[in-house]
């Protein structure tokens, strides 16, 4: 994330920092594939998951939530004025997921075998990891379909664009049904989902239900379903470790907490990114639209905070928050930075309307989410007393390298494809 913040400095050669970080990261990744994960990380038998899972996977995926929350607001709720923000949010989500897959292949010991997820005789639908894997793959496909119009418009391929509009619903119906079948092995559920999707599509085509054009609403709906499942399943991953995760974070409603906090960070990320990218690409930020999102944020932050506190009280874990140790300090930092302070900032309309206020508020929400996921994955995990884990510098550099590659890709795509509605000023660099 340090690289993302560098991008605000106008005139500062942030681009070269990204290239440098990407180069360092690439060298370390090569080292990892030759000498093993132990050569570039402090992960060990007591802490098999660490920084990479916490930051690249848990936090990274949550930050991609801007894609599904915003598209849901625009295409399903019908808040069309936010349309200019949709494509950047979809692009962020797409790149976020691509980065995530790269990071995953590095973190997996035998990542090249990731296609084992597709082999029916290896399917193990009781595993949360299995759900996570399938959600990633199907949602990534859906994101590609959501992104395609930008690419097709760029090259002015009108026929392909029409084909896209025609065939996307078919692809979505197949993907949704396939996903349901793989997760349940149940013909009844699969048929139910298949029929629901087909009927909805047919009702649209005979105009009983208004048709959404040009973006098929079923595509957006599938994106929302897969996102909700994916975000919550990342929390479900930790359901199996009641004996290892500290009471401050372990909760039977972890999946719900992960989903709600992802929905909270979605708009915050859109605001943050909208302001930063406006600065970087020298364009006018959509201030009025971003301020509209900022109006929703206090409610989302408050719900997330309320759920968190109610859960702690309900499980009688509040006592643990008042012991003085690293865990409780990290817990309070998470609660203050990601909850209380931004709630106060966004709660005051005079602050929430200004670009500066929105920037800092959104940044705090994002940082708070990072802290939360890092706490679940690293700080909250208890191994036996003598075993420790502190992320290695090389671990952090690999993550920074991958994120830098993602930001450079974002920059390239924004400059070459119709992502922002307001034209870019491409003077200078």
């Amino acid at each position: 994330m340090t690289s993302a913040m560098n991008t605000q400095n106008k005139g500062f050669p942030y681009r070269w920092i990204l290239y440098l970080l990407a180069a360092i990261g690439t060298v370390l990744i090569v080292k990892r594939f030759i000498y093993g994960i132990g050569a570039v990380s402090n992960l060990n038998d007591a802490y098999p998951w660490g920084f990479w899972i916490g930051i690249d996977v848990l936090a990274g995926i949550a930050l991609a939530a801007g894609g599904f929350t915003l598209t849901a607001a625009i295409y399903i709720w019908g808040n069309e004025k936010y349309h200019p923000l949709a494509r950047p949010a979809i692009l962020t989500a797409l790149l976020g997921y691509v980065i995530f897959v790269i990071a995953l292949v590095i973190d997996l010991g035998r990542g090249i075998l990731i296609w084992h997820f597709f082999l029916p005789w290896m399917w193990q639908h009781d595993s949360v990891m299995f759900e996570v894997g399938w959600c990633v793959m199907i949602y990534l496909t859906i994101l590609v379909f959501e992104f395609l119009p930008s690419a097709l418009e760029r090259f002015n391929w009108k026929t392909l664009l029409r084909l896209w509009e025609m065939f996307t619903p078919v692809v979505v119906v197949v993907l949704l049904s396939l996903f349901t079948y793989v997760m349940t092995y149940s013909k009844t559920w699969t048929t139910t989902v298949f029929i629901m999707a087909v009927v909805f599509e047919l009702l649209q085509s005979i105009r009983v239900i208004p048709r959404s054009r040009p973006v098929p609403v079923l595509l957006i709906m599938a994106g929302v379903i897969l996102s909700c499942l994916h975000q919550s399943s990342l929390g479900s991953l930790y359901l199996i470790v009641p004996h290892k995760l500290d009471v401050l974070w372990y909760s039977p409603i972890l999946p719900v907490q992960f989903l709600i906090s992802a929905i909270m960070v979605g708009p915050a990320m859109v605001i943050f990114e909208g302001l930063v990218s406006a600065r970087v690409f020298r364009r006018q930020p959509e201030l009025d639209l971003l301020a509209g999102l900022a109006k929703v944020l206090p409610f989302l932050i408050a719900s997330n905070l309320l759920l968190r506190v109610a859960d702690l009280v309900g499980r009688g874990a509040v006592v643990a928050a008042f012991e003085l140790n690293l865990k409780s300090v990290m817990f309070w930092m998470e609660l203050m930075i990601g909850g209380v302070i931004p709630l106060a900032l966004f709660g005051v309309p005079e602050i929430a309307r200004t670009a500066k206020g929105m920037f800092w508020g959104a940044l705090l929400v994002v940082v708070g989410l990072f802290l939360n996921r890092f706490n679940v994955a690293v700080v909250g995990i208890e191994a036996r007393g003598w075993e420790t884990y502190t992320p290695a510098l090389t671990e952090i550099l690999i993550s920074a390298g991958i994120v830098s590659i993602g930001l450079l890709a974002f920059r390239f795509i924004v400059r070459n494809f119709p992502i922002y509605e307001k034209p870019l000023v491409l003077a200078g660099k």
Partner: protein
Amino acid sequence: MKAMLIDATRCIGCRGCQVACKQWNGLEGEETSFLPSQKETAGEFANRGYQNPRDLSAKTWTLITYNEVEIKGRLEWVFGKLQCMHCGTDSNDRNKWPACVVSCPVKALEKTPEGPVIWHEDRCIGCRYCMLACPFQIPKFEWHQAWPRIRKCTMCYDRLLHGQGALWEPACSKACPTDAIVTGQRDALITEAWRRIRSNPGDYVNHVYGEHEAGGTCVLHLSNVTFDKLHYPTNLPNKSLANYTNWAMKGLPYVIVTLLAGMAGIYTVRRSKIEAEKQFSPGIESEARDHD
């Protein structure tokens, strides 16, 4: 279902089982040192300093632990044995599967009907979720290999299946000179464990570790001191950890259908309203939408 019974009161700490395990499974030796690690307190060092090596690893699948315990005013060694507990008592019931088996996305870990939990090299993708999930911290990883494997005790599955004559029992159990480790049918061993407890009053704590822990394991322990003194996890539930996660997986289709129906409903209502507004007052449509 096969199981092992490990009786701490019979163990003399010879570590013949460790050697036998390395020999049968062809595991490399470890470089060890007799120095406390950075984070070890004096107490922890006193407990772990004398065991060799310090902990299980990809190269060491079983380990005799040295625990200094005060018994009736005297300090005595009580020996524990770390190895895979081969959780689960029913390979067919998904709700009773071991945590590692339930967490594996590609069926690389398998609870066999014979009892042992084994790992399949041709399936594993190296996600290490089994390591996180295991309540006994048993699966280990080859951190310094380009093509790493998950390594752990197999209860000498090859011997159990194909062993001829006296070679059928696991190597560690075969090597044990005092019969501190015996192998047999799980039910029979539980009966035997309780027989030992009942017929030797005062010699054992009244607990067969593994009978109910994590839903019941195929490795059972007896001891003369409480099991926390042997540093075995004592905060485990009496049902399989699978139960903590499979409800979330079973709820999945309900979530899909609810979201699909809910969003279709919201879309229909909202879209119809917006279209109606457009028809009646095409001029102020954008304003009307701004009120949302």
